[in-house]
């Protein structure tokens, strides 16, 4: 069955058609999802929910170009990334994608500013321009005064905000977040969601966030529920 989820808007950033993913374990083929279709326009903040094993993280990984579909079409910003090789995907991620992990995944030996600067090392720009962007990104997440701090000197919430600054510093069109509030207390989680909301509404970033938390999902424009590899409903946030 082809379940098409479309959010009415003129220019879709993400287009998925008849996407499938299967894993082979020995002679057994385990389907994660099959015949999945979706279209998300630019500037939307979408929450992806579902029970464990529903395929939401796998879908997120495919949107990030770090996992490959078994079949179907996957286009982001007009680029058929399902056809890209590893090197092309790396280049595409560097210029199009920002990624926020559940456990922050900051480099422990680098300062907050250096962690944020990492994606800019892949961009053709000078040191002064990189510094300006890093300062701006840390300012956006409210950590301009913590630039010299190392991850171990920051709280979990602050580390996640550094990770958000890292995801947005290269000005990507798409930001993917894998349970960004899953490891945070409520006030820190609310602060992170507020920033993500801001990135979408004020800066026009398209955000896809995997979450188990209904409160977090309410920050999004739209929540998609994935169960057993299929979208079961949709809801657009008020």
């Amino acid at each position, binding site marked *: 069955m082809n379940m098409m989820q479309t959010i009415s808007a003129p220019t879709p950033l993400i287009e998925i058609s008849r996407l499938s993913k299967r894993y082979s374990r020995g002679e057994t083929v385990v389907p994660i999802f099959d015949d999945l279709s979706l279209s998300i326009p630019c500037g939307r903040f979408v929450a992806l929910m579902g029970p464990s094993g529903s395929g939401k993280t796998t879908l997120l990984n495919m949107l990030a170009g*770090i996992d490959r579909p078994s079949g179907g079409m996957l286009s982001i910003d007009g680029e058929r990334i399902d056809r890209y090789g590893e090197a092309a995907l790396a280049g595409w991620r560097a210029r199009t*994608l920002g990624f926020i992990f559940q456990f922050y995944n900051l480099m*422990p030996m*680098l300062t907050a500013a250096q962690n944020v600067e990492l994606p800019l*090392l*892949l961009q053709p720009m000078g040191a002064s321009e990189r510094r300006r962007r890093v300062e701006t990104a840390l300012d956006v997440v409210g950590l301009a005064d913590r630039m010299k701090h190392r991850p171990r000197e920051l709280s979990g919430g602050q580390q996640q905000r550094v990770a958000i600054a890292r995801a947005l510093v290269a000005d990507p069109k798409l930001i993917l977040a894998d349970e960004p509030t899953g490891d945070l207390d409520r006030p820190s989680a609310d602060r992170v969601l507020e920033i993500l909301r801001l990135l979408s509404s004020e800066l026009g970033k398209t955000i896809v966030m995997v979450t188990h938390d209904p409160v977090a999902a309410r920050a999004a424009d739209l929540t998609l529920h994935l169960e057993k590899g299929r979208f079961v409903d949709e809801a657009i946030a008020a």
Partner: protein
Amino acid sequence: MRMSTLVARNALRNPVRLVLMVACIAIAFLIFGVLSAVGAAFRMEDQPGAHERVMIVNRNGLQQTLPIAYLADIRQQPNVAAATPVRLAIAYWREPKDVLSAVMVDPAIYLTLSEDSAVVSAEDRARFVATRDGLLVGQALATRNGWKRGDLVTLQSLNDLRTDGTRSWSFRVAGIYRAAKPGGPELAVAGHYDYFNDALLTGRDRANWIMVQGRDVTANDAMARAIDASYANSAAATRTQSEAALGRAFLSQIGDVVLIIRLVVGAAFLVILCIVGNTLIFMVGERTREIGVLKTLGFSGGRVARIVVGEVALITLAGAAVGMSLALLIVTAVASATKDMLPGLAIGPTTLGIAALLAGGLVLLTGLLPVVKAARLDIVTALGRV
């Protein structure tokens, strides 16, 4: 921040491990540096003229001598520019424990042949050549014994007897030489062959070797073959070879030093290769998740590989630099103490070049597996590890 900052921060994140790895590599290069310097000194690589001068010795070994009558024939060889007999006299002055090396030579020719290793003033040259009992003394030896030009010095021979039944030869200090190379040997003496020979009771008219300077260095091999062919059927057959080759032949009497050095250095590097390689693989394994994160941010496999190679190179080159610096310090310190026994003990450009090649090879070999592992790491698998 530059990519090199990332490399340096990675290398410095575990200081204890870094120090141990650098120390490990440094020890290998220290062994290499010191042993190579010793090997080069044995091969006389750094001594100018060692390859150009030709030495004629008895084919049966350095303990045997040659008749001085050969000298006139050898001087007739077309490529021979100059030739001097060298009679080795092991002697002492005052205390038997202060043994010194004395060579009895044709003074004028010896001065010419030794120009590359000993510096002698024109006055001293003339005085040494003109004085039948004249002695040319190394500056260090003269300073140590308080000898001045004109002093009468009596040397006691350990091996040779005079016709008067004594072992005493009196010489007059005619000149003082300085080593051409700073720190070079200055503890030997040279006297007139005729003066020494005329007083000998036994072993007269013999030379331990004949030192020859060829007119054309490229013709030395042909000259050597011609000389050896001339005496092939005589009672004292000759072996003619370069001074450097003679040094090697001498050492071969106590064992193949170069082979021993190569084996020790090879074993040291093999052990280091295993230790460092294993540690680097472990290090990359430890950072699997971080590599996955870098790749998610857009770092390609090649770029991640370059970061790992950079780290391996940084650690290896630091170890090599520390090891070779220590080797230089040790060799310099030892060289001044052993300059007479082992002249030319130094770490030369050849050894430094080989060290650089070894460091490069070590980076390639130890870095190969970790780099391939990092470059090919699947992101989903990497991020799945905590």
